[in-house]
């Protein structure tokens, strides 16, 4: 009996396993895209009106000795980044009395796809309406802001 007991006990010892630890890994690299929107002035309707870009997203429309009437300056917004964007705001400032300014072709909330994907650009125009002829020069700013498309706030 003793030998049988020993046999069983030691057989149990013999059926052991070796445990072996190992570390495996998940290695990740994340490359983020970027938002980059270009604003470029286009052609203007008259000699009295010119258009330039002040900051990356601000258009400056300047009138010199305008007569009463409508003046137009075109512009183009182009998404040169890798993320679709939406126009979060269009802010017009510096408008003198007797003058009205509006923007055509682009509106708040408009989506501009990323570079290389249609439509990745839009053409617009700034319309300046002068109520009465005036002498001198004044400028109107039209500032655009853009956000990642899914971060747009209504």
């Amino acid at each position: 009996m003793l030998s049988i007991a020993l046999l069983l006990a030691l057989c149990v010892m013999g059926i052991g396993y070796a445990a072996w630890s190992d570390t495996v890994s998940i290695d990740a690299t994340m490359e983020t895209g970027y938002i980059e929107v270009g604003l470029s002035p286009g052609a203007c309707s008259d000699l009295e009106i010119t258009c330039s870009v002040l900051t990356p997203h601000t258009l400056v429309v300047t009138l010199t000795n305008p007569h009463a009437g409508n003046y137009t300056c075109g512009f183009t917004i182009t998404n040169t980044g890798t993320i679709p964007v939406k126009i979060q705001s269009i802010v017009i400032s510096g408008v003198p009395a007797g003058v009205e300014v509006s923007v055509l072709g682009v509106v708040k909330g408009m989506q501009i796809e990323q570079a290389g994907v249609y439509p990745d650009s839009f053409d617009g125009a700034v319309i300046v309406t002068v109520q009465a002829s005036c002498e001198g020069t004044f400028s109107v700013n039209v500032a655009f802001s853009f956000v990642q498309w899914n971060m747009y706030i209504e």
Partner: protein
Amino acid sequence: MKRQVKPGRWLIIALALVVVFSSVGITYARREGRPQNKGVVATSCCCDPFTWVVSNDDGAEDNVNPYGVIDPGDDGGGTDYNKWGDQSSDDPSEPQTTGVGCARYDKDVARTTAWISEDQQEITVLVENAYPSYYPTVFFALKCPDSAPGTITSIVIDNPYPDALTVTTSGIYPGQPIPQNEEVTGAVHVHVEQAAAQNAVYTFKVSITTECQPEVTCGTAYAYHVDYGTCFADIGFTKWGWTNGPLGSGSYEFQLWAGAAHCDTSKGRLVGQVTVDYDGSRAIVTYNMYEGNWMTETHLYVGNNRLPRDKKGAETVSPGQYPYKHDPLNNVTTDSYTVTGLSGNIYVVAHAVVCWFE
């Protein structure tokens, strides 16, 4: 009529069994972690851990047996915008659960791909053109060798950019058992935060430590030299093994074979090599294990006769009768003897008990 057996005989039998099975027990006894002694840690990994990996934004719904489609919705389309074509899908905007669809944006702007290294030790994940609120999931499975159960002992997420990324895991947890011959499935979820910079590269790492319990096999091994080796069977013994000689002064390299019954090396396992440096009076005999093998005991004969002799003066091949022994050894991968007082040509019989993971 019952045959009477003397109690003393039972005691001898019992003691013999103790010796025999103790050695078995020592050989197979459970070890914690990798074998503790030098060199053994260099053996190949016990687990072939990652068995598959699936990204939920690589443009393909992956059907993995026996789970079915892992990532429904990863259909290769872009609803309103499709930058990557069929290489990606509408971007996930929440973590995905295995086999269940998740919310997605209506655009395919970013992409996530994942693949397993050739040795199955590493998964590489590449997230491209990511942006705040993008939320891909990478599913995976890992296992231990077919015959071995195991446990996940730790999961460590090394994320140097917590403001930009939130990295979480699901489906696996420390202490989780890995059933024998089965795999466990898990997922890594990546959420790009608002603070993530544009045009930037971020990295993170998830380390998963497992403890598997592969079965250890041990066997007797003998050194063999193709030019000098003589099988024990060829000189009248029933056991297998080789005596090697006669060796003059010089350096020799022997193969160390385990389990080569009848001296048939085609049935054996080449576990290492034995070198002999003999200068005419002193022999240095060194055992070196190949990767994945270790020794628990060695026995050595070096002398002018082809074999050692037992107490009665008869030739013997039993390792216990060899004049030099290191027994037990603590799972070593090298062992060495220096034998002095030699002269003339010598014979070498080098024996070891060698173990390895199946």
